[in-house]
């Protein structure tokens, strides 16, 4: 197997000439990017640069926005996600999402985690119990909520809610986790916990994380992509992007000259 083939088999998501418009505003311009499996890829850039749009395109959450229009291709495991044979509900089962603000449903902790499996047809109590425990353990929150499974999730702290949301996403056994600034609404201690969790999750999942926090990107990510005004300016290994970026704009941004 030569180097190129290796690269190809490791790629889990691959976009080509991806353009997204909201009405007349072009939010993404010809983004071509290969995301490797079982790694953490950070998307950075100033507000409005298109990184969240990029993230939300990968599981077709942008479908919910009426004015959004997309061209180009996104391949998930070599399948075109916009192809008519792609069930959007299946796609979202494989590519889960964690949002900026923790958004547990106003249900019990148990029902929150069980929501996804129930959506996809798991009805048996024993199976659900098992999935709920496994997912909560996977999100490093089991010990804190094991006695509160029947309590309303809205009673948890912000950091716990966010880990619950991660558990909820894990419950459908996804392949990829998209995280849209998952710690920006949290305190430093909760942030540290979530970051440790993300590093653990890398073992089994591919993680793509949007972050405004340069230190966070540096701490946890393997690859970093810098977006500016809808352009993917630079994409490469995090070490290189943060030490010797090849583009002047990347350097200006990560050194805090604008943002």
């Amino acid at each position, binding site marked *: 197997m030569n180097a190129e083939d290796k690269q190809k088999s490791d790629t889990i998501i691959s976009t080509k000439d991806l353009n997204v418009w909201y009405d007349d505003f072009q939010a993404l311009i010809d983004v071509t990017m290969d995301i490797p499996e079982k790694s953490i890829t950070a998307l950075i850039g100033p507000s409005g640069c298109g990184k969240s749009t990029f993230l939300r395109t990968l599981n077709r959450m942008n479908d919910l926005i009426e004015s959004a229009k997309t061209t180009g291709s996104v391949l998930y495991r070599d399948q075109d996600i916009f192809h008519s044979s792609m069930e959007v509900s299946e796609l979202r089962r494989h590519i889960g999402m964690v949002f900026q603000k923790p958004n547990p*449903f*106003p249900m019990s902790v148990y029902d929150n985690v069980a929501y996804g499996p129930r959506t996809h047809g798991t009805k048996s*109590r024993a199976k659900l119990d098992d999935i709920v425990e496994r997912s909560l353990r996977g999100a490093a929150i089991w010990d804190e909520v094991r006695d509160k499974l029947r309590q309303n999730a809205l009673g948890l702290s912000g950091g716990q809610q966010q880990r619950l949301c991660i558990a909820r996403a894990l419950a459908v056994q996804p392949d990829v986790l998209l995280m849209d600034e998952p710690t920006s609404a949290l305190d430093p201690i909760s942030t540290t916990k979530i970051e440790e969790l993300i590093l653990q999750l890398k073992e089994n999942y591919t993680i793509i994380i949007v972050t405004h926090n340069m230190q966070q990107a540096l701490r946890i990510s393997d690859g970093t992509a810098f977006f500016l005004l809808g352009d993917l300016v630079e994409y490469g290994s995090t070490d290189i992007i943060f030490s010797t970026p090849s583009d002047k704009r990347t350097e200006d941004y990560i050194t805090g000259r604008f943002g």
Partner: protein
Amino acid sequence: MKTIMWISAFITCGLIIGIIVYVFAKGIPFISWDLLSTSPTYIPPHIGILPDIMNTIYIVIASLVVMVPLGAGAAIYLEEYATNQKVVAVIEYAAETLSGIPSIIYGLVGMLFFCEFAGLRTSILAGALTLVIMNLPSIMRTTQESLKTVPQSYREGAFALGAGKWRVIRTVVLPGCVDGIITGCVLATGRILGESAALLFTAGFAHTLNSFFEGLMSPGATLTVALYVYAKEQGEFGAAFAIAAILMILTLGINSLAMWLERHFRKMREQGYPQEKTKE
């Protein structure tokens, strides 16, 4: 200036309390078990309002049964499915306008459409359907407003887990707006109780005791209409005031129920939605 305001407030409160006291004073002495539990007869002359009470219940039930699915369905469509915001705006504007039309116009249209054209003749059903049209806009609006209070992030969270539109609505959106629908129902019930003009045209004046389905197809007076008939055509002011007092008690009850439900649902919302069914 302050004195003038005080006098205005005093007169307003005085009038309200005055009317309540007056109606109760005139009506309550005539309320008896016999009045509530019998049908009227001409020979010997006897007044009983049981048929009117039953007619009122029938018309409330029939109206709600048609109105709630229609109104809530329309609201869900407009809020969750409709994509053309212009059409939504037009429908909302039309609904606002409809709710401002005097009810006697609904009565006239209801008479021509349901009684004549649709062949229902003068009947409780024709009256109920007329009331449905009258109250649809408001139940649609209350449902819409409560749909808007369900955070978008709940919907996004559910969609991101692969849930389809209907599952998202059923499990995440609807439980969050049941309170709005029920409050809307209670308020509509209050308005139905108080409606007379539209029913004079469509539901008629009969005081016959019927079963529910028989009643739907027969003419029948509700309490408000009976009040009109007894006072205006038979000069039975005792009975009229008795009905008035009953209506006021009912209205009071309905309003308290609406308030209690709102508090109850707010508490329930804080505690979370009911659990989904799981197989053992």
